[in-house]
């Protein structure tokens, strides 16, 4: 497997605060990788380190085969970066923004630009400063997709946007992906925003990277287990690093099995709860994210 992004022990300190600590991450080429984490987890800092907007205190990052500290103009011809914090030249209209960007990109596709402009319903002649946040984000995204980048890095692109705009942006991204799929790294604190997009997911918390794995694998290994005891009391949850308590009521115990994809999962379950009625339920990605977000940094069974 080739990787569009690889980091090794990536660390960034701001004074005494360690915003990112020893991050080791691999983003497969061609994947849509969602970097998830609560607010203040270190997602934006990580992406800025990858884009050479910040220098790492320690460690290295390679982006499309180039050391992030050496990302130059030529490298950025293949990379798109859109951030909610980015200061766009707001005195321009969207059309002027595209005219401004076009000469810098040998691969600029005006046909794609026109199509996306039409699909996203951008007002071409209004100044960016007069547009809503969602429309400005559309313009920024369009200015970043029209040259068919190999890597698209999106920092909280959907935050605060209404579902309609969010859907339009996702559709825009997927449209480009359909032609020639780029690697997309998108950070978010809300799994709902990226669930439709991501095929890989990584989780960061308090500046420390927790895990990264394909969404399908994640969905396959997390299960909600419901155990109904034959007696009056619910059964006790045995100590197992992969079983996370959920709740209990009456004779019923519920917990989350984070290794349900293991071959011996059913046997371990049966051995732990003899004479009990055991039912398993798949968990949606959002639920898995919430469970992980609420756990301590060392999530049992969270290693990829």
């Amino acid at each position, binding site marked *: 497997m080739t990787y569009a992004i690889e980091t090794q022990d990536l660390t960034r300190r701001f004074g005494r605060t360690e915003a990112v600590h020893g991050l080791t991450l691999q983003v497969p080429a061609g994947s849509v990788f969602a970097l998830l984490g609560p607010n203040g987890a270190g997602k934006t800092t990580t992406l800025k380190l990858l*884009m050479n*907007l910040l220098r790492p205190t320690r460690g290295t990052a390679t982006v499309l085969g180039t050391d992030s500290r050496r990302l130059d103009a*030529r*490298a*950025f011809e293949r990379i798109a970066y859109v951030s909610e*914090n*980015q200061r766009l030249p707001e005195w321009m209209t969207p059309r002027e923004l595209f005219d401004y960007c076009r000469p810098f990109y040998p691969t600029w596709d005006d046909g794609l630009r026109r199509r996306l402009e039409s699909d996203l319903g951008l007002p071409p002649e209004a100044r960016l400063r007069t547009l809503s946040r969602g429309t400005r984000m559309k313009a920024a995204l369009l200015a970043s997709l029209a040259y068919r980048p190999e890597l698209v890095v999106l920092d909280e692109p959907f935050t605060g946007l209404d579902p309609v705009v969010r859907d339009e942006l996702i559709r825009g991204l997927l449209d480009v992906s359909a032609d020639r799929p780029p690697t997309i790294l998108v950070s978010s604190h809300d799994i709902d925003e990226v669930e439709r997009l991501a095929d890989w997911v990584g989780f960061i918390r308090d500046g420390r990277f927790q895990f990264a794995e394909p969404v399908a694998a994640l969905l396959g290994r997390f299960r909600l287990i419901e155990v109904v005891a034959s007696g009056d009391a619910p059964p006790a949850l045995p100590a197992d690093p992969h079983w996370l308590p959920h709740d209990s009521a009456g004779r019923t115990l519920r917990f989350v099995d984070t290794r349900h994809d293991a071959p011996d999962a059913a046997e371990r379950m049966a051995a732990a709860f003899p004479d009990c009625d055991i039912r398993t339920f798949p968990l949606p990605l959002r639920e898995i994210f919430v469970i992980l977000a609420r756990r301590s940094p060392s999530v049992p069974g969270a290693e990829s």
Partner: protein
Amino acid sequence: MTHAAHLLRTDLRRFGLAIALWVLVLIADTVLQGVRPALNTDLRLSTVFDLLATLLFASRWLGMIVIVALVVQSHALVGSEAFWMTRPIRWRDLLASKLALLVTAFVVAPALCDVGLMLASRVPSAEIPRVALQTALFQCLWLLLFMALSSWTRNLARLAVLAGCVLIGLMLLLNVTIAVMVRNFPEGPQLTRVIVRTMTSPAGAIVMLLVAIVLAGAIVAVQYRTRLIRASVATAAAGIAVLYLIANFWPSQERPRPVPGWTNGADAVRLVSESPEAEFSPFDAGSPWSPGGGWRIGSLPLRITGIEDGWVATPRLENGTITFGDGATLATAGNGYSGPARASADDTLSEVAVRHALSVTRLLEPVPEGMGPGLAPAIVVAQADFEKYQGATGTYRGQFVVDLDRVVAAATLPLQVGATFQDDRHRIRIDQVIPQSRALSVRLRQFTSSSIFDSTHPPQVTLYLRNRSSAEAVSGSPRGQIGFSGGAMHMSLAVGFSVEPAASGTGFSITGSFTRFPAGYGERIVELSREWLSQAELVILHTITEGSVTRSVEVPGFRMVEAPARSAR
């Protein structure tokens, strides 16, 4: 189209209007500089023009600072949110586009305006490129400094805070420096090395200016290259260190000013004291930091003979001793002081030289008190020694450096509107002749060009009214000088570098002034009759600084006496 040209076009679209307005202000300021001295005929107009000139001057500099900041900060070089930082924009292209725009607006345009003003003012063509180049170089330095400050901040508000901090820091540094100087300032008279007049090569100031420009450019380039404030601040610190080294260790290349051949004659420039009595007055070093309590300065009525016509000689004390009959010797405790030397009991050398240059027998204006045939400082002694030896007789031996100046009539103009004098760097035009009761006022415009590339200071200009038939002349006093040279601001920066330029380097300036004849600074009122004025003409005198010679004087029978109260040193 190259990326730099594309970026330039984008900036031009955004800031073109602001820059065009600034250029209009620049042109208006230049035009006003040119016409103001000519139009300034009464107080009301003068007030309006003063206000307008102040407004234009402030708009010009504030506008430049704001536009430079906006242009630089439109592609911010600090922080991590700027749009361009993740676009395929090379720092060299970005810097080249910014420089192309800003240099055109803030370096080329002011230099062209200077050229236009000088052409309109009929400045000799040889002088125009030098002054224009000086303007361009200083504008370049200011521009790069403003660019550096702007590149360290992301918006105008932060730039204002940074500029405020820099100013406060400079003021604190200045205050601390002055406090240290005051603390270390030696009290009382000082013995220094008294040297002959020298000529300074302009190379030092030029090198300093060029290095400063290169270093300011390096700060900007490093910030564009690295986007790291610590890297460009380190470059700035290194640059200041380099400038300091140049300022202190650059060979000054000073050489003595030449002296005329006649000074080699056996009797040339001889010092003689007209009286063996030296008047001693309380010593005042002339500085509030240096109280002179406890010291006395003795002055002799020194006469200088063996001077060619049209020359002025001024003695500067180098060393002086008094040997008394009891064998005791007093040596001067301070030196470097100068005073007027006499040509005769009634005449100063300068008055004789002026009369000669004007070819007149009499100057009507009486010599003001303290400026007449006075006394030249000869020795500084302690108050206790003065009290001890007051009235005692001894022999005074003094060594003096005698500075020579030449007074020549550069031109004679009829008292008519439009009469003009012109030499290489100076032009004077009569704009108005205003007869007054028993006096005359002349409104003049003076066009002066001076740059750091000049190796000599321009001569000092004085104006006289001369009546040939009566062989009399009267001096004038300029009043109400109008005009400003932008070069003065540039030079204040150069002086900050502490390398003295050879010439004043104030650029091109046009000043207007009213000169009243007689000057009216004497005790006796001089009145010029209508007949006298009808035959008068305006004479422009140049006083040219020349070299120095060293001379000694011996005064036997020297006595120290208390100076009368009227005596002024």
